[in-house]
């Protein structure tokens, strides 16, 4: 199974500014999501896309909504499957809050690993 790895930190710096390390504000979230979607379209043979947040500092609710919730909702058919990795405690907190509003939640993808998938509640 081919896996597409997307580094959100690189996406932020490529799509918005080389100087940014935090995912804050809705326009930033939109720009990063659009960049990620371009990467997904380019990797047509990958059924799993790993969205890696390990090189991201802080993420606010607006970015959690624009990047995680909207990505998942726009690919509700299940292709590709999104796996979210490199999440800090505060990233998870922000994502949990926004997913709950959309009737979804974050669950561990694999035992003993820091990777998660979003599921409908």
């Amino acid at each position, binding site marked *: 199974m081919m896996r597409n790895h997307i580094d959100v930190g690189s996406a932020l710096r490529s799509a918005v*500014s080389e100087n*940014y*390390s*935090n995912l*804050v*504000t*809705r*326009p*930033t979230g939109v720009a990063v999501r659009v960049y990620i979607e371009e990467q997904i379209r380019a990797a047509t043979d990958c059924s799993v896309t790993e969205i890696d947040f390990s090189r991201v*500092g*802080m*993420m*606010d*609710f*607006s970015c959690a*909504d*624009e990047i995680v*919730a*909207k990505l998942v909702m726009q690919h509700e058919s299940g292709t590709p499957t999104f796996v979210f990795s490199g999440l*800090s*405690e*505060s990233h998870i*907190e*922000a994502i949990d*809050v*926004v997913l709950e*509003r*959309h009737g979804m939640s974050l669950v561990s993808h694999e035992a003993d690993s820091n990777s998660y998938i979003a599921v409908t509640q």
Partner: protein
Amino acid sequence: MTNVITVPPSLDDTTFEQILEPLSRLQPDDRVLIDARHARWASPYGLTALLTLAQTRMSRPSLAVPEADETASYWARAGFFRHAADLYELMGSVPRGRQNESGVLLEITPVAASEDVHTVVDKVQARAQSILVNELKLDAAATMRFTMALSETCQNIVEHAGRGGWVAVNSYRWQRRLAGRRVLVIAVCDAGVGFRASLETATGRPRTDRWDDGMALEEAVMRGVSRFRDTGRGQGLAGVRMFIGKWNGKFSVRSGTARLAIVPSWDEDVPLHENLPAFPGSQVQITIPERVDR
């Protein structure tokens, strides 16, 4: 005729109402002199709200600078006079503030666009860690939550106010309240359209018998209602409220003629003040107290 409004000796979110009360009786183009000569102390809210006040006037107001050197020096270090010089006719001796030696967590910073929020978050993140962990005794994760709260409150200006506002953050020790505990205070003030007018732009908003500034604040802050139809919107301030609760902090939002507060056990404020003097925009304050193990 110039209308003189005296700044109370201690200027914070509560005493600022003493300025708004006489101001609300004036026409927007009436001449105003804000007399701060006898002011001795001002919170981040007091200073940012003074800048906001000037933005609401049609004719350039005057401001008499505090006479006490220590007070004027602090206002300068907080960046107040740098911005006030563009908005007020300053009267009196204005000291120079050296920004890199300010000792203030975040000097008064204008917020008008998304980039400004990035700048604010980057500046504060680096400086807040030691204060939150060493002085307020909060866990390390609090820094991220704190900057999230700051980001969301600043975004409120960018997304809804319709004009630029101001943010300031500082930490100090309360002399009389909370047994002298240290607090961290965020103030975010703007003179934009305010919550009620912002929500009124939403299409399909159900009309109710009661619709006023107080209800608009309840909708936005307590129920996460936004003018946008997107269900993902409106989570910012509701999320901030959640964090503040975890820290036993206080969160207050003033808009128009109302002020809504999430009141912790250590404070005696009321959850909703109505019929306050009208003032444009929204003024937010977050107070995080030093944690005390019980």
